[in-house]
């Protein structure tokens, strides 16, 4: 088992770089048809930068799955992408950290022990587009070109 993530007084995981999420590891971000924007010139539909938004929780980051930890437990990268209309992208941890983000562990007990977070994205599209630029598509969301 990995070392426990740091928590605040209420038990919420606080932003951190987890030592056992290594730089050569990858995280999986789920995508949905709601994330798609349409090019007004071509009609092409692609992921918007909004797909890489942090949650609104007080200490919430961007929710991801930790791919290498899943693989170690015999799970495929898309194991937690259960909705057939959803897709997923893969992000390299070193690239995320090079952009100034923290990548840590936030286990969801009972549902997803391989769940992590990316913190530090904040508001605005600039940093989100940097994430979009390093994202590798594993499976397209329904409707994505």
């Amino acid at each position, binding site marked *: 088992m990995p070392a426990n993530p740091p928590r605040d007084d209420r038990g919420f995981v606080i932003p951190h770089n987890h030592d056992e999420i290594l730089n050569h590891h990858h995280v999986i*971000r*789920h995508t*949905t048809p*709601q*994330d*798609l*924007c*349409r*090019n*007004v*010139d*071509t009609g092409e539909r*692609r992921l*918007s*930068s*909004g*797909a890489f*938004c*942090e*949650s*609104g*929780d007080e200490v*919430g980051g*961007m*929710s991801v799955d930790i791919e290498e930890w899943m693989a170690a437990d015999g799970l495929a990268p898309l194991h*937690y992408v*259960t*909705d057939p209309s*959803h897709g997923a992208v893969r992000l390299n941890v070193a690239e995320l950290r090079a952009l100034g983000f923290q990548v840590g562990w936030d286990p969801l007990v009972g549902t997803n022990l391989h769940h992590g977070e990316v913190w530090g994205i904040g*508001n*605005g*599209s*600039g940093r989100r*587009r940097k994430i979009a630029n390093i994202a590798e598509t594993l499976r397209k969301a329904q409707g994505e070109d």
Partner: protein
Amino acid sequence: MSYALARTNWSPRARSAAGAIGSTVTEPIPVNQPAVSRSSTGSAPDWSRSFENRAQELLQLRPNWDNRGSATPRIDALSFAYSVLSEAMAPTTASPSVIPLSNGGVQLVWAGNQVDVEVEVMHPNQALVYSLDHQSGVETEWQLTTEFSPLSALLRSKFTA
């Protein structure tokens, strides 16, 4: 100003029988047709109807609608997004894509071959504008205040027919 039919009189009817003795046919009175103004903007522009339809869809979303813990889009964010559009859009400006954000805000996206423009609305009176010029690679980001003219100029120059 051009009024399409304003100066055209309805033609008086021919007095074919009017000259007959004892006829009760009276002289037709020339009547100006009612002035018809240029097409008005009384009906909602396409982007407005498109936004309203999309907002209705987004308000149906439940917490964790994406299985990644996202919040429901907030009605105050949607409402402010509509206000931004009302200030910045011309009637023929292309409709943006309206994207729900994990934090309950909404994002308006105009993606084009020349320029991308994105407006993120977090809360009422709290919005960020981002633009990317694909040719030069120049990115610009600014806080949207009550001054909408830079955004309006961008949308009208790049995304308005």
